[in-house]
């Protein structure tokens, strides 16, 4: 005998009332790219509502920064978007330089642009790898990691770490590049377009790929702007906005590149957009290598932000105990009152740092405008009315990293 209503509905089939039910996707789901939890309200396989829950990876970077000097916070920015940490380092440095009014030497600017584009490649390669893996193309995953490995080895050569780079310093970069680095990077840029072609051969016209990505997760240009999307996710919808082009920093005014823009705003468009961006990054790296000027790699008065050298060497010699040095670093006359917001184009979108300074050696408040956080906020809009399987494709196409989202 049928005892409860649920069984009754199962048997009756057609006459069953469609009662929505909720499933929790994540936080340990492999396709959510980290510890993202989605509460999906479903009717059959159709998503009625998608509520993202974030904060599983919260480490309080913003609060930590209030107790650390500006130079000490820099290694923490590695841990935001940990798959392209060079880009975070650069974004943080240009924000602090704007606050403290430091002019970076030209050579450092070129090196920074170079490593930032390398970071964009590592970010996009990992995005393509995992996005394809989520949708079901295993081979692309392995091929992308082959190229990413070469770039990570180059990071290791110039800064001593593959992921947690901490390469820039306030006012420049910490280490100069070597000849071996330049040559291997140049070889890489010559080889890389053929590798992109390989990925495209595998998935670009593949009918499974097209079925999974076309007309899925469409977001119009107006909606994309009002949701606050940035980066390739926004450009896929056909909005021409790129911080590198419209508010250029470092050496971007001196290099030639184009901003790829999509038209339809679906998952496939965002995929094409990022693939095209990889070509552009490749050409930017090449131009930076060829135009690399000579000169200092740190601004003349910047090193004392880490530790009093140069200018304050004499004062520092007298104050060799711990509190004295910290006092020197923190009470330097450099620090001015005021607030500043500076954004940079990282692989995910627009990463902005907002500082409120009260004239001391530590920020009064640091806020991070992380693109991943805002993109996750847009997920509930994007997933509404889609199938459960398409939710995976949409998460992949907005390219979120939870380290940056939860910070």
């Amino acid at each position, binding site marked *: 005998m049928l005892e409860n209503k649920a069984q009754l509905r199962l048997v009756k089939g057609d006459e069953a009332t469609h009662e929505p039910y909720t499933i929790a996707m994540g936080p340990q789901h492999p396709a959510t790219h980290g510890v993202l939890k989605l509460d999906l309200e479903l009717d059959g396989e159709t998503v009625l509502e998608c509520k993202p829950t974030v904060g599983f990876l919260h480490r309080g970077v913003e609060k930590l920064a209030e107790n650390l000097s500006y130079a*000490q916070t820099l290694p923490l920015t590695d841990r935001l978007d940990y798959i392209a940490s060079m880009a975070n380092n650069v974004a943080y440095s240009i924000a602090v330089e704007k606050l403290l009014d430091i002019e970076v030497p030209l050579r450092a600017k070129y090196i920074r642009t170079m490593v930032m584009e390398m970071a964009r490649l590592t970010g996009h390669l990992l995005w393509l790898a995992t996005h394809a893996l989520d949708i079901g193309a295993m081979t692309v995953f392995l091929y992308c990691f082959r190229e990413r*490995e070469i770039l990570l080895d180059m990071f290791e050569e110039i800064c001593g770490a593959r992921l947690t780079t901490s390469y820039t310093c306030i006012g420049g970069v910490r280490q*100069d590049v070597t000849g071996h680095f330049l040559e291997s990077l140049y070889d890489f840029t010559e080889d890389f377009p053929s590798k992109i072609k390989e990925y495209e051969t*595998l998935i670009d016209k593949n009918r499974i790929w097209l079925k999974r990505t076309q007309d899925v997760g469409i977001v119009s240009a107006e909606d994309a702007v009002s949701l606050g999307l940035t980066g390739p996710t926004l450009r896929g919808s056909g909005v021409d906005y790129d911080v590198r082009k419209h508010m250029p920093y470092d050496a971007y005014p001196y290099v030639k590149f184009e901003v790829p823009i999509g038209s339809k705003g679906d998952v496939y*468009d965002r995929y094409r957009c990022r693939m095209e961006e990889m070509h552009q990054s490749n050409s930017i790296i090449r131009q930076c*290598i060829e135009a690399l000027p000579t000169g200092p790699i740190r601004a003349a008065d910047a090193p004392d932000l880490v530790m009093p050298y140069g200018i304050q060497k004499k004062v520092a010699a007298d104050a060799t105990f711990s509190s004295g040095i910290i006092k020197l670093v923190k009470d330097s006359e450099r620090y001015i009152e005021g607030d500043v917001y500076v954004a940079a184009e990282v692989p995910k979108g627009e990463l902005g740092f907002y500082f409120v300074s009260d004239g001391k050696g530590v920020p009064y408040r640091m806020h991070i405008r992380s693109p991943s956080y805002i993109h996750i906020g847009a997920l509930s809009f994007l997933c509404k009315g889609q199938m459960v399987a398409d939710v995976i494709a949409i998460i992949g196409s907005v390219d979120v990293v939870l380290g940056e989202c939860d910070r």
Partner: protein
Amino acid sequence: MRIKYDTKKKLAEQIFLLEILKGLWLTLRRLFSRSVTIQYPKERKELFPGFRGKHALIRDPETNQAKCVACMRCSSVCPARCISIRYSVDEKTRARKVDSYEINALRCIFCGYCEEVCPVNAIVLTEDYEYSDYTRQPFHFDMERLLKNWDEFLEKNNLEPDKYLNPFLRPRGLPLGELPAGKRIDVPEEWTYEGQVIWKDGKAVSAKEAASN
């Protein structure tokens, strides 16, 4: 630049699954190319100098002790606050003596600030990354342990103590005047400010060389 949204297929492509065959041909060709992976425990990747790994205090060949002068720079610059130093001051000579030097390696975030600011090149992050253990205690490095790390590192890599060079001991591309006396060590010309590299005619050359030609 507007990207092409062109996914239409020709009739032949639609019928004969050409794009699938192309993909399969690509993966088949890869089967006969050189492998890109390393079989880790058997083979090991060669690291670049300056990889930020296990901590060590460089043993001074003259005194057979650590070079540390207890200036406290490393402990005050450390973002993770994992270095703690205690020292005593000699009443007559005003010289400092390090009583204890401790690094909690589990707190360390391997940013390399300590070795960069050290004015006498006492502390170094060696290119050793294999030091796992079952308990926490072995990662609490005291002075003896840090000196032992240095000896073990030299032994493992067959290095001469005075031949060891690391870009953090003298940061690449900084003018000599900006460095404290202890960091003005001999380095390859490429690492110096005068010998920095630029790109010319399809290869990396030092700026000095490029100017003279």
